[in-house]
């Protein structure tokens, strides 16, 4: 996609989203759209380390939950010292905390085989949940409630929102577009080409001058930070956070399924996967239980991995290549 076309698409998406926000007041749509955008950011984040670099993260739910809980903790702590922080402070805090966790986990395990990193992230998510189950400050296993703030007035009152949910949707829209821009930038940059070399053959990459450890650590940090960004506004949306829901199975399986279904080698793969799968899940969620939801995603993931390992985008590319050869 050429640069002009890309920015045009981003602008169009932004305008469409804003128009949508201005034209309707049905809260349900905003909840659904928020959920899809949240999944989109998680899928894009996962793919930076998973699809671009080839290191699988099984603990996405852990990163997400830590982002959410950093908001919970800060939201309790800052007012106690007299600070009333706007949303972007929480988003920034989530990014920093989770970025550091990504860096730390990476530093401990990315010098070994990718398998050990995957296992370590899974164990990390479980330990994170254990920790939150025990941390009284954020409500431990029983969870904690967050009061919905008033919708903010921005730009000296010129921009206001009729509900906080609408505001969160717009924030999430902006964050999603930012994630897409970051992901595309990485994919088309020298950094991204280095990551692809690591993914294809790490030893050869190292011997061709790629500083593999450094690039892997940066990739893990970016992934962590973006997942923290996805999780940070979550408490304000759902108003009640407990470890069971924050470290959710659905988030864990979606973060892997969406990029794989879309196609991990391309920056737009996770976008395709998230939009398709996320929308399907929102449509079906009124009719099926959340367990059946996870079951179906699991089946789709396994089926996709067996039958279409390069995802939908890969399939389409293969068909086009075949058509070119025969045409």
């Amino acid at each position, binding site marked *: 996609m050429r640069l002009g076309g890309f920015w045009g698409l981003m602008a169009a998406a932004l305008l469409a989203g804003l128009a949508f926000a201005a034209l309707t007041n049905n809260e349900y749509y905003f909840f659904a759209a928020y959920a899809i955008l949240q999944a989109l950011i998680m899928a894009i984040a996962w793919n930076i380390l998973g699809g671009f670099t080839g290191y699988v993260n099984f603990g996405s739910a852990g990163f997400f939950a830590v982002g959410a809980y950093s908001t919970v903790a800060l939201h309790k702590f800052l007012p106690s010292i007299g600070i009333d922080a706007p949303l972007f402070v929480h988003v920034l805090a989530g990014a920093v905390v989770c970025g550091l966790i990504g860096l730390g986990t990476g530093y401990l395990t990315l010098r070994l085989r990718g398998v050990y990193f995957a296992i370590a992230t899974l164990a990390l998510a479980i330990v994170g949940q254990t920790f939150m189950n025990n941390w009284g400050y954020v409500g431990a296993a029983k969870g904690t409630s967050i009061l919905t703030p008033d919708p903010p007035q921005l730009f000296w009152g010129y921009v206001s929102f009729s509900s906080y949910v609408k505001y969160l949707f717009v924030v999430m829209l902006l964050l999603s577009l930012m994630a897409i821009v970051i992901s595309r930038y990485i994919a088309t940059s020298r950094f991204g080409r280095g990551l692809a070399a690591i993914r*294809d053959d790490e*030893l*050869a990459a*190292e011997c061709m001058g790629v500083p*593999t450890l450094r690039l892997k650590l940066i990739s893990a940090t970016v992934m962590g930070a973006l997942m923290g960004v996805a999780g940070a506004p979550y408490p304000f949306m759902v108003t009640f956070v407990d470890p069971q829901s924050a470290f959710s199975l659905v988030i864990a399986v979606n973060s892997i399924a969406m990029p794989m279904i879309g196609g991990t080698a391309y920056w737009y793969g996770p976008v395709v996967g998230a939009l398709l799968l996320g929308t399907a899940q929102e449509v079906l969620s009124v009719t099926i239980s959340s367990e059946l939801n996870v079951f179906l995603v699991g089946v789709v993931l396994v089926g996709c991995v067996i039958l279409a390992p390069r995802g939908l985008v890969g399939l389409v590319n293969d068909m086009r290549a075949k058509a070119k050869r025969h045409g």
Partner: protein
Amino acid sequence: MAERILSVKALTKRFGGFVALDCVDLQLDEGERLGLIGPNGSGKTTMINCISGALLCDQGTIIFKGADITRLAAHRRTRRGIVRSFQIPRPFRTMTILQNLMVPMEYAVAPGARGGDLETEARDILDVVGFRGRANDNSGRLTQVDMRKLELARALAAKPRLLISDEAMAGLSSSEVDEILDILFKLNGRGVAVIMIEHIMRAVFRFSERVVVLDAGRKIAEGTPAQIVKDPLVERAYLGV
């Protein structure tokens, strides 16, 4: 008088209880062509793994262009000019041939030394190995000899001062061997020192100015090809008599 480019002293590498390299010395001058031979399991690949940094040696020193690189990370050694090709080719399979070359061109070469137009440079290299017009071919499905050529092309793209070629000709036909040899001579003509590891003796003897022989982790002989051919120790190592 050519300068010493590589000086390896007392290189030792163990894998658990197994001693793969036992106190091996190796010197190389700029632009020199060295053949490294020895029976299977004698430690040749381990040696280049240690020199290139894929492995860290247990004992010994490696001095390259006057600097001690013994504990330097592999990618830093590549940037200084030590480039190796792999015995079993390791292309970046999801990339085209051109993209394969871009990786070393963007990472192995210092920013200041990068040519203005990377693509032109890449096509020059492709010409050297005989890949003209194939820049956009997918690298995942190449013939054996083409994969070897890609290995060498990629090594070239890294602007080496020293190229270590690990059995680039194994399993190739006679004319294919000559093609690879041709590329290596062209490289050497540009001033690149080459260490060639091979089992195909006619290639080794045609190419090398000097030959080093390893057996069971030790250097057992060193000299011109003519001297090596007559060395009884070498004969015993290969024939086991």
